[in-house]
């Protein structure tokens, strides 16, 4: 480029800069005054498009990313330039979205077959590169260009090769481009650029290794700057031309063929490699030999290895003598290197030479060669290896055995057995390692035969093999060996017993148990018994022989106690409990050990008693065993929490508390979180940290989801966790907590109804809701005051519990009224107890002592007691013993109630009837009441979450994304139109056309651009549709648009047009077929509408993705007028066509 042209470019650039700045200013103004008409029409349009696109990044998936990129590309060069102008130097503003967008663009055009688009984007990036003033912004473009650019971007990049701030980025980019033009540009630049950049250019050139720059680089390789010398030598090595040979050798000789800062040896090795690759075989050979010869000293012998490796790589068999000679070297890694390179030369002649070498070498080297021969798997070596099996030297024999097995596989088995027979010490261990991969169950008979003939020192190995293969057929043989005179053999036989035992052998084993005295042997027989008994399913049947033995034989008792925890069964447990309580010393200890090892939660009660009443001696261990049992028990999370809370009261050191907290980690229910949070204030920092770990595990979403716990309480707890969480990986945990705090929905979530200290928020009961409604405010206030005055007589707060100890039926009522809600509450009753939870001032979710059969309490608590038409009894008994705590989870939506008692669903979405006036439905809202019924009661941990219909059934993820519910699950509030054919049943909108009535149900509000999600269930032949941007009158398919909802499979629709099938924009854009679920199953659909773009996703597959303007500009497919396509907003509706269809989970996000 001549200087004149350069100036001209610069001038133009300045001019452009000025213009661009002005445009940017205008643009910014436009952003500020969105609705202003200051800017010209077309500019505003472009910038709206840019803003629209940026709003869509980062795209949720890669398909969408490509779509967004296609929108970008459609804006052409000037449009794309708008994006580039928004990239700013780091720290001067937030350009995150635009960096996403431009990255997406660069990746999109880099793929195969996008040449036209790539050229457009190359041009834009180059222009942006030149227009940017900040070097870090420029580097952003250089970074991207190196991944997608082709020849055309070279000159623009090369222009920065002499810019000290950018030459490295430019050089990297030119390396990345990997094309001839880039290489040429680097070569040209080499002579022109100044010192700091020269290094980068030489380095970049090294990657291309162009021969013609060699002389220039050789000069640099003699430079005083060691850095430059190093890079230049490396580059010369890559070029690998014969002209540099003398120079490279001299340089290496100058540093005595050893490591130095200029890396002369490294370069010489690499040079030789390239030289050979370039066909300069003779020269390369000469240098490689020289390297091997010169590099044997302590400070350079690894280069000697390189020399050998070069020879093996390029000259194969010819290099063999060098490798053979290397075996005389004293250094093991040198010899191992030679053998490694020798693997490249797998021909018979070479193998013969190696065998010859092995014979001449000392045993250690011979062993190495034999090992190598084994790996080569060349059968020529078999006779030699076979002979070596009998070598005098044990190292050679072992290596030969290895190699023999490698060569012959299972055929080597009898040789290995011989080897074992004659072996001593290490050889025996080695034989075992060889046998395990050779022997499956099929080989066991051969092993068993060999076992009989084996000298004692080899027997344990074979016994071990039989055990490893679980050869139960060999039980008698192993049993016999338990009484072998050689202790090694009998030990091995005992150890093997469990593996070969089965239920038929129980009696033999019990007999053996009785006769066995040594500790380790007893343990082995006990294991064998457990293994044998595990074949019996019923615990009673399983334990019978053991209990029998216990009763018949005093001597065997302690041994039997050791087995019982793994045998289980009620009788066993009772026996162990009795022994613990009534026996002394040894037997008592045995029984205690058995209790702590018990496998099923039945032992929890006994352990709890030991913890709370037993001596200090047993407490700690019993505590740990209890926690372990509960942790592993298959009971509901609610039960786990209750039981762990109970034992926590007995914890008297931080370690015990930590055990409980750890055990609560998988208990992912809200009450567990608030319970654990108490320990964030513990005096001990370890306990605090444990509590924080557990709290975060409970509250945070499982990986990959966003369904974690949320709400103000959760937020408070998690914030408290961050400073106290410690230990391994805690930085991850903290980061994860912060991420969730950032992502969680803003909703209130569960809040406490009870502060643990007093009865704030609660008041006395005045009559009933109907009576109260009839009172004047003054009258109500007066009566309320009277009722409140009575509260302290009956209700009190102690120990974090609300207690009723009074008489009569004075309920405790929440001051606040609740409509739809979820409620957690713990309750405890006393003998003969009776209570309940009133919902919206109405009785009740029943609580009672299940032993009161006379009133029918045996059905359990949790039922909707006063229901007459709808079920009043709970589905099952889930109560804990009277005197223990219970947990209710109650959900009330509309008139329907769900109750879970201790984690079991006892009432499932049942209508609560209005007890006060049975002709009325339940009140829309009212207080939550704790019922008093004359017996002592306690309540604790009362948390309520109010459900507002706008978040009905939304996932936290959808809430975070801004979705709102259009259907509250109860009624058609928010909907207009045909409310007779459309009705709400069981939380679902159902259309049941009475007498073939058609009719549409529309949202009250209008929507323009939105994502509309819903679920629907078709009946055979069903036809419905979703009206979009529709007016309330007229045929929505034409005056708005209609997204078809249809059972495609029905025979009556066999001859439809493509644009009539399910999901189609009716008459305009056809949908893909085949993604509906079978009729009767629920389908999920999203209709995404933005401007002219309509996308329909059915059950996760996009079935329509089109532009209504494009699709209709030459007339629509159905040749009808669709004036509705021009509408920009309107109602969303269900368009009835006379068949039964159900809809639920209806939600929308405005875009």
């Amino acid at each position, binding site marked *: 480029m001549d200087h004149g042209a350069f100036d001209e470019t610069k001038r133009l650039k300045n001019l452009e800069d000025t213009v661009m700045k002005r445009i940017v200013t205008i643009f910014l103004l436009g952003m500020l005054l969105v609705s202003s008409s200051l800017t010209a029409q077309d500019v505003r349009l472009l910038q709206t498009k840019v803003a629209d696109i940026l709003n869509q990044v980062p795209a949720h998936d890669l398909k969408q990313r490509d779509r967004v990129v296609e929108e970008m590309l459609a804006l052409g060069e000037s449009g794309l330039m708008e994006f580039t102008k928004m990239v700013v130097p780091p720290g001067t503003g937030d350009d995150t979205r635009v960096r996403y967008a431009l990255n997406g663009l660069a990746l999109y055009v*880099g793929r195969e077959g996008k040449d036209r688009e790539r050229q457009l984007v190359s041009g834009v990036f180059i222009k942006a590169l030149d227009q940017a003033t900040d070097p870090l912004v420029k580097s952003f473009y250089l970074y991207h260009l190196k991944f997608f650019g082709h020849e055309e971007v070279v000159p623009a990049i090369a222009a920065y090769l002499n810019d000290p701030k950018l030459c490295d980025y430019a050089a990297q980019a030119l390396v990345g481009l990997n094309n001839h033009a880039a290489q040429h540009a680097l070569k040209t630049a080499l002579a022109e650029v100044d010192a700091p950049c020269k*290094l980068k250019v030489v380095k970049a050139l090294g*990657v291309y290794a162009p021969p013609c720059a060699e002389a220039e680089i050789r000069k640099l390789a003699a430079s005083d700057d060691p850095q430059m010398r190093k890079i230049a030598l490396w580059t010369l090595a890559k070029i690998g031309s014969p002209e540099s040979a003398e120079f490279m050798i001299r340089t290496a000789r100058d540093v005595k063929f050893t490591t130095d800062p200029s890396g002369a040896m490294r370069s010489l090795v690499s040079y030789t490699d390239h030289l050979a690759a370039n066909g300069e075989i003779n020269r390369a050979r000469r240098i490689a030999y020289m390297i091997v010869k010169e590099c044997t000293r302590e400070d350079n012998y690894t280069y000697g290895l390189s020399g050998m490796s070069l020879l093996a790589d390029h000259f194969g068999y010819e290099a063999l003598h060098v490798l053979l000679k290397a075996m005389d070297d004293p250094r093991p890694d040198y010899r191992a290197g030679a053998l490694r390179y020798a693997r490249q030369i797998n021909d018979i002649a070479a193998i013969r030479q190696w065998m010859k070498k092995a014979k001449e070498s000392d045993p250690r080297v011979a062993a190495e060669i034999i090992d190598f021969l084994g790996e080569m798997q060349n059968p020529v070596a078999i006779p030699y290896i076979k002979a070596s099996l009998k070598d005098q030297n044990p190292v050679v024999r072992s290596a030969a055995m290895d190699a023999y097995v490698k060569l012959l596989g299972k055929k080597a088995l009898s040789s290995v057995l011989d080897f074992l027979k004659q072996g001593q010490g290490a050889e025996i261990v080695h034989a075992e390692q060889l046998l395990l991969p050779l022997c499956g169950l099929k080989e066991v008979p051969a092993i068993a035969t060999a076992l009989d003939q084996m000298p004692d020192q080899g027997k344990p190995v074979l016994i071990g093999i039989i055990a490893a293969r679980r050869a139960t057929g060999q039980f008698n043989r192993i049993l016999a060996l338990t009484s072998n005179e050689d202790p090694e053999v009998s030990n091995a036989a005992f150890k093997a017993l469990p593996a070969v035992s089965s239920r038929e052998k129980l009696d033999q084993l019990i007999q053996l148990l009785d006769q066995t005295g040594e500790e380790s042997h007893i343990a082995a027989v006990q294991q064998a018994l457990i293994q044998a008994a595990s074949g019996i399913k019923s615990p009673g049947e399983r334990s019978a022989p053991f209990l029998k033995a216990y009763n018949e034989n005093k001597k065997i008792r302690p041994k039997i106690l050791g087995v019982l925890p793994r045998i289980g069964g009620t009788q066993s447990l009772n026996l162990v409990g009795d022994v613990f309580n009534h026996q002394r010393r040894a037997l008592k200890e045995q029984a205690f050990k058995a209790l702590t090892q018990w496998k099923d939660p039945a032992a929890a009660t006994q352990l709890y008693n030991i913890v709370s009443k037993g001596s200090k001696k047993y407490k700690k261990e019993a505590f740990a065993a209890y926690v372990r049992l509960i942790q592993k028990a298959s009971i509901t999370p609610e039960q786990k929490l209750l039981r762990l809370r109970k034992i926590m009261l007995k914890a008297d050191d931080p370690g015990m508390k930590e055990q409980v907290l750890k055990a609560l980690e998988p208990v992912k229910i809200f009450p567990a979180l608030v319970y654990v949070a108490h320990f964030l204030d513990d005096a001990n920092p370890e306990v605090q940290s444990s509590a924080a770990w557990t709290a975060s595990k409970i509250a945070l979403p499982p990986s990959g989801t966003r369904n974690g716990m949320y709400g103000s309480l959760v937020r408070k707890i998690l914030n408290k966790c961050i400073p106290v969480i410690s230990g391994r990986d805690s930085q991850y945990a903290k980061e994860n907590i912060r991420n969730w705090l950032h992502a969680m929905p803003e909703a209130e979530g569960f809040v406490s109804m009870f502060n643990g200290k007093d009865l704030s928020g609660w008041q006395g009961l005045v009559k009933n809701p109907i009576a109260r409604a009839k009172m004047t405010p003054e009258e109500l206030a007066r009566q309320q005051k009277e009722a409140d005055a009575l509260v302290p007589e009956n209700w009190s707060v102690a120990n974090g519990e609300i207690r009723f100890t009074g008489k009569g039926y004075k309920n405790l009522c929440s001051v606040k009224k609740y409509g739809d809600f979820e409620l957690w509450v713990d309750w405890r009753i006393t003998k003969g107890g009776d209570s309940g939870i009133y919902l919206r001032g109405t009785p009740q979710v029943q609580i009672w002592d299940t032993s009161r059969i006379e009133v029918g309490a045996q059905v359990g608590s949790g039922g909707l007691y006063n229901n007459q038409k709808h079920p009043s009894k709970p589905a099952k008994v889930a109560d804990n013993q009277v005197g223990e705590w219970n947990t209710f989870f109650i959900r009330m939506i509309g008139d329907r109630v769900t109750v879970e008692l201790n984690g079991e669903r006892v009432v499932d979405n049942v209508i609560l009837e209005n007890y006060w006036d049975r002709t009325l439905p339940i009140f829309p809202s009212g207080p939550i009441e704790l019922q008093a019924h004359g017996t002592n009661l306690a309540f604790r941990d009362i948390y309520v979450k109010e459900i507002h219909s706008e978040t009905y059934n939304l996932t936290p993820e959808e809430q975070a994304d801004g979705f709102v519910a259009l259907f509250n699950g109860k009624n058609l509030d928010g909907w207009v139109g045909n409310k007779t054919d459309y009705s709400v049943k069981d939380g679902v909108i159902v259309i049941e056309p009475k007498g073939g009535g058609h009719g549409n149900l529309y949202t009250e509000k209008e929507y323009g651009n939105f994502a509309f999600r819903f679920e629907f269930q078709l009946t055979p032949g069903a036809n419905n549709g979703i009206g979009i941007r529709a007016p309330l009158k007229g045929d929505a398919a034409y005056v708005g648009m209609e997204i078809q909802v249809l059972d495609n499979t029905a025979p009556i629709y066999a001859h439809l047009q493509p644009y009539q099938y399910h999901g189609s924009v009716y008459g305009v854009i056809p949908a893909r077929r085949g993604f509906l679920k079978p009729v009767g199953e629920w389908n999920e659909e999203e209709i995404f509408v933005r401007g002219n773009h309509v996308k329909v996703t059915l059950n996760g597959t996009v079935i329509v993705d089109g532009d209504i303007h494009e699709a209709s500009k030459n007339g629509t497919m159905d040749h009808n007028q669709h004036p509705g396509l021009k509408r920009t907003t309107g109602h969303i509706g269900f368009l009835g066509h006379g068949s039964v269809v159900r809809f639920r989970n209806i939600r929308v996000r405005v875009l």
Partner: protein
Amino acid sequence: MQDKTSLSRRKFLKNTAVSVVGLTIIPRYVLGGPGYTPPSDQLTKGIIGVGGMGRGHFKYEGTRLLAVCDVDQKHLDSALQLAGPGVDGYHDFRELLARPDIDIVHIPTPPHWHGLISIAAAEAGKDIWCEKPMTRTIGEGIKVIEAVKRHGRMFRLNTWFRFKDTFYGLGTDVKPLKKVIDSGILGWPLKVTVSGVTGYNWKFYWSGKKNLKPMPVPENLDYDFWLGPAPYKPYNPARVHAVFRGYWDYDGGGLGDMGQHYLDPVQYMLNKDDTSPTLVEVDAPQQHPDAVGSWRRITYTYADGCQIILDGENRDKDAAYIEGPNGKIYRGFRSNIPNLQSFIKTLPDPEPQITTFTESVKTRKKFALNEENGHRSATLVNLGVIAVRLGRTLHYDPVKQEFINDEEANRMIWQPMRGPWSL
């Protein structure tokens, strides 16, 4: 810094190998015993990178620590304190490598340094203990293999699930799985799903902060050296210690962090130690050019139809973990094949492997997880990273180790380094 006595110690070590014939090369079947360390020839090590991960390398058994190196003076100081007397500190790893008395070099640096330092260590005649992921690019891995071979070195990658410890959600180590797969009872090809169910945890959601403000570099940190071959970007604490995995320039997020732990054993079980998938598909949100984002699913398919699925969002709650045409193995090592457990026990063991690195160093036999199979499992990680970054399906040639018809992806195999660093 060089110590004459230790210099000669190394020489002594090598010489003893000559003088006591047949004893100094200790066959692995002798070494295998518990806690067996011949006191006379304990190997020595140096650790390069002694931040969070590097501390863990102090305790790896069988070697004596002689030197530590870090470009953060704070890390170096506290590491020296932890190490106690007799351990030297270095700022520049090349000086540590120049010490002739060090046998093994540990490389728990951030991944963008693994390749360069491994190659330099091989050249310096050191055996290498490298952290996962083995290398940040496929190209670097190819070069590491070349250097390790050329200089006759031993290499171990620091993940171990193929030969030790419970393999995540399966509740077993790999050995019985390998046995059952080798037995053919599940049929072929196999599909392996790794998901939250199998312990594939939230670390996969490592994501970098975007729009970082330039901040002054702390005095204790040589940031330019820390960056090394990575492109220069202004300092911000979010880029460096403990959180660098959130940036493509240094690692690949959770996939880089934990991917090789999960993928390597699978590769071993499927007998894919010498090959790579031919197809990589990805489901992910759009990625930022600098900061790593999350992804939902990566599917690898091999030429023979075997598949590995990384189910990042745990969509397959009940998925079979290993699934073949004739049977499945679920979480907790359950199976739809009756009595699978007892069946497995009747099968022969897999080939034995060398699983202590000191044994490998002394016998010069390859470690169970070495530069070659390690490179193939790191390739799985890197294929995933490239597919996520590019956001498209990739076709890979496992023999040539390059993508088919995708120049842009191939440029990610061989990424240019910042001068003067080069492969």
